[in-house]
C-alpha cells in the first residue's frame, strides 16, 4: 500500500519536475527542478530495493553532476531568460507524444517471457550494497576498471577544456582580444 | 617441412616489413633475393609434394576462433600446388624485369604483400582465411594501379576495387550461410573447406549458394558481362601490375570454382552447366572480337585474357578429369603466357612511351630478339602444340566435348579467333615496312629483360613438351574430387552425368 502511494506520489513529482526542466525559460529554474527530479528518482531506486543505486544517484547525480552544471552556469550568462527560436511546437509534441504512446503500447503488451532466467539472483543473505559489490568486482571487474579510467580521463579532459585561459574574463572580452594579448605577452 | 606453407605465406610479408628499413638503393636487390628465396621454397614444396596422394598435404591447423569454427588451416593439393608455384615464379620474374623508378621501395613492398595474399589464397583451407587473403589482395593492387598507373589510373583502380569487392561481399554472405547450414546439419560451425566438401546439401540451397559464390568468382575471373573492369585495370596499370593481375589474380576466380563451386555444390554446378557454358562461349567469341578491334597493344592482350578465361571456364565445367585438369593447366599456362606478353608490351612501352598499334610496324627488323620472343609467346597464346598453351586448351575443349559437342565447337572458335587477333597484333607491330622514324633506333632487349623473358620462354617450351610433371598431381587430385562429387551428388542427373563422364567403348 505504501509502495503504491509512494510510487504514484514520486511519479507525479518527477514528471512535474522534469516538465518544468524541459519547459522553463530560465536556466536556473531548469537546473533546480532537474536536481529535484533526480532526488525523486532516487526514491524509486529505494522502492526497487536498489539501495546502493539510490545512494549513488543522490551523491553522484544530485550532488556531483548538478554541482558541475552549477559551475558551468557561472561561466555563462544564464540568469536571464534563454532566447530561442523554437521550431513549430506541433511537430515536437507530436513526435514526442507518438513516441510516448508507442512505448506505452509496447510496454503494456505482455512482455514477460518465461524463458528469462536470472543470471545473478539476489541472495537474501547479503544486503544490496554487498551483492552489488560482489558482482561488480567479479563479473564486471573489467568494465568497472574501464569506467574508472573513463571517469579519470573525463575529469582531466573537463579540467583542461574548461581551464584554458582561466585567468581571463571570458564574459567581457571576445576571443580575438585575448588572442592578441597572448601574442603580445609572448613577445 | 611441417610449416613450409606458413613459411611460404608469411615470408614475403615479413620480408616486406623489413623492407622498410632497407636502403633505397639496395631495395631492388633485396626484393629480388626475397622473391628468389620464396620461389625456391615453393620449388621445395613441389619436390616434397607426393604426387600419388590426391589429398591435402602439408596441412597446418591452429584454432583461431574455435567457437565459430574459424581456424588457421593451410594445405596444398594438386590443384593449388602449381598455382602457388606460378605465383612465386611470376613475382620473381616480375621483379627482375621491373623498370619502375618512381617510389620503387613502396612498390616492391606492396608487391611482396601481394605475393603473401596470392599464396595465401591458394593454400588456405579455411573459408574465412581464404576470404581474408582474397580481399587483402585487392589492397596492394589498388595502390599499384592507383599510384603508378597512367592517366585514368584513379578511375581504373577504384573500379577494379569496388567491382571485385562487391562480388566478394556476396560470396561472403554465401560463405556465412554455408557455415550456418553446416551448423544445422552437424551441430558445429565450421569454415573449413574440407569439411564443407563433405557436406551434402539439398538442391535448392545448392543453387542459391552456387549463385552467390558464382558472382564473387565470376567478377574476379572476369566472366562476361562482369568483365569491364579488366580492360581499364590492365590499360592503366603499370607493367608489373598487369603481369600479376593477369597471371595470378584472375586465376583466383577460376581456382575458386574448382575449390568451392564444384565439390561443394556438385548438383547445382551440373544443373547450371549450360548457362555457364553459354556465358563462357560469349566470353570466348565476343571478347576475341573486341580484342581484334583494339588500337592499343595492351588492351588486345587484356581482352585476349578474358577470351582465354572462357576456355578455362568451359574446361572446369566439363566435369571430367580431362577437362578440369586441362583447365587448371590452362590457368598456369595462361598465367605464364599472358604475364610474358604483358611484360613484352611493357618493354616496348618503356622505350616508346606508347602502346598504340598505329605507332609501330616493322619492328622485327629493329628488334629481332624482341620479335622472336614475342612470336613464341603469340604462338603459345594461340595454342600451338609443344608450347604450354596447347595442352590446357586441348584438354579443356576435349573435356567439354563430352558435355556438348556443339558448344565445344563454338568454344573452339577461340583457336581461330585467337589466331586472328594475335596475328593481327603481331603483323601490325612487327611486319611491314618500318614507317615510323621514331622506331628506327630502338634498342633490342637488354640483359635484364632477356633474363626474365628467356626464363618464361623456357618454361613455355618445357611444359609444352613435357607437361606431365604438372599434370600428374593435378590429375590425381581432380580424380579424387570427382569421386567425391559423384558420391555426394543428390540429383539423379548429376550422378548419371558424373558417372558417364569417362571414356567408354561403345560397341555396336
Amino acid at each position: 500500500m505504501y509502495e503504491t502511494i509512494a510510487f504514484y506520489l514520486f511519479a507525479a513529482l518527477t514528471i512535474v519536475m522534469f516538465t518544468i526542466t524541459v519547459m522553463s525559460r530560465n536556466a536556473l529554474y531548469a537546473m533546480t527542478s532537474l536536481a529535484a527530479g533526480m532526488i525523486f528518482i532516487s526514491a524509486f531506486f529505494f522502492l526497487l530495493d536498489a539501495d546502493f543505486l539510490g545512494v549513488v544517484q543522490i551523491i553522484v547525480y544530485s550532488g556531483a553532476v548538478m554541482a558541475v552544471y552549477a559551475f558551468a552556469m557561472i561561466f555563462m550568462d544564464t540568469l536571464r531568460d534563454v532566447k530561442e527560436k523554437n521550431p513549430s511546437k506541433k511537430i515536437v509534441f507530436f513526435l514526442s507524444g507518438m513516441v510516448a504512446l508507442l512505448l506505452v503500447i509496447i510496454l503494456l503488451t505482455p512482455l514477460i517471457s518465461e524463458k528469462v532466467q536470472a543470471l545473478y539472483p539476489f541472495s537474501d543473505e547479503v544486503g544490496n550494497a554487498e551483492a552489488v559489490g560482489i558482482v561488480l568486482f567479479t563479473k564486471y571487474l573489467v568494465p568497472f576498471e574501464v569506467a574508472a579510467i573513463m571517469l579519470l580521463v573525463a575529469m582531466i579532459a573537463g579540467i583542461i577544456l574548461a581551464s584554458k585561459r582561466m585567468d581571463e574574463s571570458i564574459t567581457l572580452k571576445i576571443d580575438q582580444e585575448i588572442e592578441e594579448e597572448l601574442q603580445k605577452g609572448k613577445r | 617441412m611441417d610449416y613450409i606453407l606458413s613459411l611460404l605465406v608469411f615470408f614475403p610479408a615479413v620480408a616486406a616489413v623489413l623492407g622498410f628499413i632497407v636502403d633505397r638503393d639496395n631495395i631492388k636487390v633485396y626484393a629480388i633475393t626475397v622473391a628468389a628465396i620464396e620461389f625456391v621454397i615453393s620449388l621445395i614444396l613441389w619436390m616434397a609434394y607426393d604426387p600419388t596422394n590426391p589429398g591435402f598435404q602439408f596441412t597446418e591447423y591452429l584454432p583461431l576462433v574455435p567457437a565459430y569454427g574459424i581456424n588457421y588451416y593451410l594445405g596444398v593439393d594438386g590443384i593449388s600446388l602449381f598455382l602457388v608455384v606460378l605465383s612465386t615464379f611470376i613475382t620473381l620474374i616480375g621483379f627482375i624485369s621491373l623498370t619502375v623508378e618512381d617510389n620503387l621501395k613502396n612498390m616492391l613492398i606492396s608487391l611482396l604483400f601481394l605475393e603473401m595474399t596470392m599464396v595465401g589464397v591458394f593454400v588456405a583451407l579455411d573459408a574465412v582465411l581464404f576470404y581474408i587473403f582474397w580481399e587483402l589482395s585487392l589492397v596492394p593492387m589498388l595502390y599499384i594501379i592507383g599510384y603508378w598507373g597512367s592517366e585514368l589510373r584513379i578511375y581504373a583502380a577504384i573500379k577494379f576495387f569496388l567491382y571485385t569487392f562487391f562480388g566478394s561481399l556476396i560470396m561472403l554472405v554465401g560463405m556465412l550461410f554455408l557455415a550456418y547450414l553446416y551448423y544445422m546439419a552437424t551441430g558445429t560451425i565450421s569454415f573449413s573447406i574440407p569439411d564443407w566438401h563433405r557436406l551434402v546439401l539439398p538442391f535448392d540451397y545448392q543453387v542459391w549458394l552456387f549463385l552467390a559464390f558464382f558472382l564473387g568468382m565470376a567478377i574476379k575471373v572476369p566472366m562476361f558481362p562482369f568483365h569491364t573492369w579488366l580492360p581499364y585495370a590492365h590499360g592503366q596499370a603499370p607493367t608489373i601490375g598487369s603481369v600479376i593481375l593477369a597471371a595470378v589474380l584472375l586465376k583466383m576466380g577460376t581456382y575458386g570454382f574448382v575449390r568451392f563451386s564444384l565439390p561443394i555444390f556438385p548438383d547445382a554446378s551440373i544443373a547450371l552447366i549450360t548457362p555457364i557454358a553459354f556465358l563462357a562461349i560469349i566470353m570466348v567469341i565476343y571478347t576475341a572480337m573486341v580484342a581484334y578491334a583494339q588500337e592499343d597493344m595492351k588492351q588486345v592482350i587484356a581482352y585476349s585474357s578474358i577470351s582465354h578465361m572462357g576456355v578455362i571456364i568451359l574446361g572446369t565445367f566439363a566435369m571430367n578429369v580431362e577437362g578440369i585438369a586441362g583447365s587448371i593447366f590452362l590457368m598456369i599456362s595462361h598465367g605464364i603466357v599472358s604475364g610474358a606478353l604483358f611484360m613484352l608490351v611493357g618493354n616496348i612501352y618503356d622505350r616508346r612511351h606508347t602502346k598504340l598499334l598505329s605507332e609501330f610496324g616493322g619492328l622485327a627488323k629493329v628488334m629481332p630478339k624482341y620479335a622472336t620472343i614475342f612470336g613464341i609467346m603469340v604462338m603459345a597464346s594461340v595454342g600451338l602444340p609443344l608450347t604450354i598453351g596447347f595442352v590446357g586448351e586441348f584438354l579443356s575443349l576435349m573435356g567439354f566435348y563430352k558435355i556438348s559437342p556443339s558448344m565445344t565447337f563454338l568454344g573452339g572458335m577461340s583457336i581461330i579467333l585467337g589466331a586472328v587477333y594475335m596475328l593481327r597484333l603481331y603483323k601490325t607491330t612487327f611486319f611491314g615496312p618500318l614507317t615510323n622514324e621514331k622506331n628506327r633506333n630502338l634498342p633490342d632487349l637488354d640483359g635484364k629483360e632477356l633474363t626474365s623473358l628467356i626464363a618464361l620462354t623456357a618454361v613455355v617450351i618445357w611444359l609444352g613438351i613435357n607437361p606431365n610433371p604438372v599434370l600428374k598431381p593435378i590429375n590425381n587430385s581432380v580424380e579424387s574430387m570427382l569421386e567425391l562429387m559423384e558420391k555426394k551428388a543428390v540429383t539423379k542427373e548429376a550422378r548419371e552425368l558424373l558417372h558417364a563422364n569417362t571414356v567408354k567403348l561403345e560397341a555396336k
Partner: protein
Amino acid sequence: MITLNHYLVLAAILFSISLVGILRRKNLLMLFFATEIALNAVNIALAAFSKFYHDLTGQLFAFFIIAIAASEVAVGLGLLIIWYKRTGNIDLDTLQSMNG
C-alpha cells in the same frame, strides 16, 4: 500492486519528456539537461527490471550509466565552455560546421 509495467510506463513518460526537451530546446545547456532526464528514465527501467527479474545486472548497468553520465557532463560542459568562449553563445543553430 505496482508491477514492472508501471515502472516501465513511468520510464517511457519520462523519456518522452526528455525527447520534448531535446527537440524543443535550442540552448545547449538545456539539451544537456534533457539528456540527463533520458538517462535517468532508462535507469529507472533498468532498476525495475533488476528487481522484477531478480537479476543484479540491471542495477549494474544503471550504475555504469551513471558513470557514463558523469563523464559526459564533465567533457561536454568543458567543450561547451570553450565554445561559449569562442562564439559568445550556445545556440544550437550556430553549430553548422558539419554541413556536408
